[in-house]
């Protein structure tokens, strides 16, 4: 059943994301063609100088491109909130919550779909920048970049950084879900209550991180500040710990949201 929920969740959201992805890639190519960036020595600089029609078009197209990047980021956030709020807590909830499906499967299907779009939005933005910059020998350059990063960061961090990015975004999404669920407990001003709940959850997270920082200061933060190495070994420990804390906080959000939707659901 989780598979079917995922299928419909992706269908419901793809009609927003796919068109904007295509437009972004398209505008990256347009900008590359009319070439507002040029490689001078080792750096890329804009070449818009003087006021004529071509430069005007260059200016417009680069503006549209950046507007699209902002739009896709904003859209990703809005859709994450809107899918949970409208599809589960709005009138559509009457359909979703009477399907022979467990509540946790609804939450997980929305979480996984949201994460998929976050990753895809990230990849689309990166790809569009690469298209825009028009780098010679793109793939060998990318390979060189990765091997340099690996040399600098070490194997552990190369694995840990993407993991912490994924886990922390899952945590952020679950915080939103939990805040919306807590807001749903109120009979009036549900949206306002959700904002309040979000703030509280955020502060709780900050407190947990602060306690952790103090409790482990002697082992992590103090040696980290005294170390003279470019990338001290404590960085990996720190990031691994942050990952674990985000995972635990995320699970807590998930459990609270699940209990509320199971036992305290009260659709209008």
């Amino acid at each position, binding site marked *: 059943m989780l598979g*079917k929920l995922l299928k419909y969740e992706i269908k419901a959201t793809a009609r927003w994301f796919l068109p904007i992805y295509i437009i972004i890639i398209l505008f990256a190519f347009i900008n590359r063609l009319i070439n507002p960036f040029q490689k001078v020595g080792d750096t890329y600089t804009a070449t818009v100088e003087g006021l004529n029609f071509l430069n005007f078009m260059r200016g417009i197209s680069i503006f549209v491109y950046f507007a699209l990047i902002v739009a896709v980021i904003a859209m990703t956030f809005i859709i994450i909130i809107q899918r949970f709020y409208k599809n589960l807590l709005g009138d559509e909830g009457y359909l979703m919550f009477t399907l022979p499906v467990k509540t946790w499967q609804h939450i997980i299907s929305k979480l996984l779909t949201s994460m998929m779009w976050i990753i895809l939005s990230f990849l689309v933005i990166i790809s569009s920048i690469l298209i825009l910059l028009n780098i010679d020998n793109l793939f060998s350059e990318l390979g060189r970049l990765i091997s340099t990063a690996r040399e600098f960061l070490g194997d552990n961090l190369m694995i840990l950084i993407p993991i912490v990015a994924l886990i922390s975004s899952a945590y952020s999404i679950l915080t939103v879900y939990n805040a919306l669920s807590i807001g749903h407990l109120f009979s009036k001003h549900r949206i306002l209550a959700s904002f309040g709940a979000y703030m509280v959850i955020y502060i709780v997270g900050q407190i947990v991180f602060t306690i952790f920082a103090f409790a482990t200061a002697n082992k992590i933060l103090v040696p980290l500040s005294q170390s003279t190495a470019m990338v001290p070994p404590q960085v990996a420990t720190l990031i691994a710990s942050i990952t674990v804390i985000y995972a635990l906080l995320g699970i807590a959000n998930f459990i609270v949201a699940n209990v509320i939707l199971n036992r305290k659901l009260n659709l209008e």
Partner: protein
Amino acid sequence: MNYILECNNLTKTFGPTIALNNVNLNVERGKIVGLLGPNASGKTTLIKLCNDLLTPTSGEILIGGKKPGIETKRIISYLPERTYLNDWMRVSDIIEFFKDFYTDFVPDKAYDMLSKLNIDPKDKLKTMSKGTKEKVQLILVMSREADLYLLDEPIGGVDPAARDYILDTILSNYNESGTVIISTHLISDIEKILDEVIFLKEGQIVLQKTVDEIREETGKSVDALFREVFKC
């Protein structure tokens, strides 16, 4: 006796408001039952409790002997008073959706009813009028071979001409071994199809009888009896 719906000392409160007060109720299989009562008498609350959309404050509710959950959702076909259709699907997409999630859904039945009502399966749900959406929902709900149909105000929002069609749809499509519970306050319109009625008043059952019993004992129609019981 294996009842399709049992309520034992069922109570549901919302803060200080008591929506259902110690309800005891048994409904048999294979019946068409009218759940009748004025506004705010607890009809929708009872139906939501059956659907696991609300959790009882105390007491228990059993559907085919089971507490509300995945197993009971499989055998209940529910028509809420709200429009739950989303705005991005076509009619044919929502039919696929029902087919995917409910094993007892019969798409041919749905397409057949759609064509009788001149609704194009290619139409988007978004562009439909409220009345058409209600018809689509009823078609989806009645195209399942469910054990229990829970219809909350199925004729509330449609014109009298469409009411007859809807009642015919309900009668000619429900799974005969299943039970249909129809909640409404428009009694005269549905009286003729009911086997049994339940009167709900301020969260309590005040009467549960077959329509024949009512006629024999009081010589009145259900509508007349309702007006008497709920006289203001």
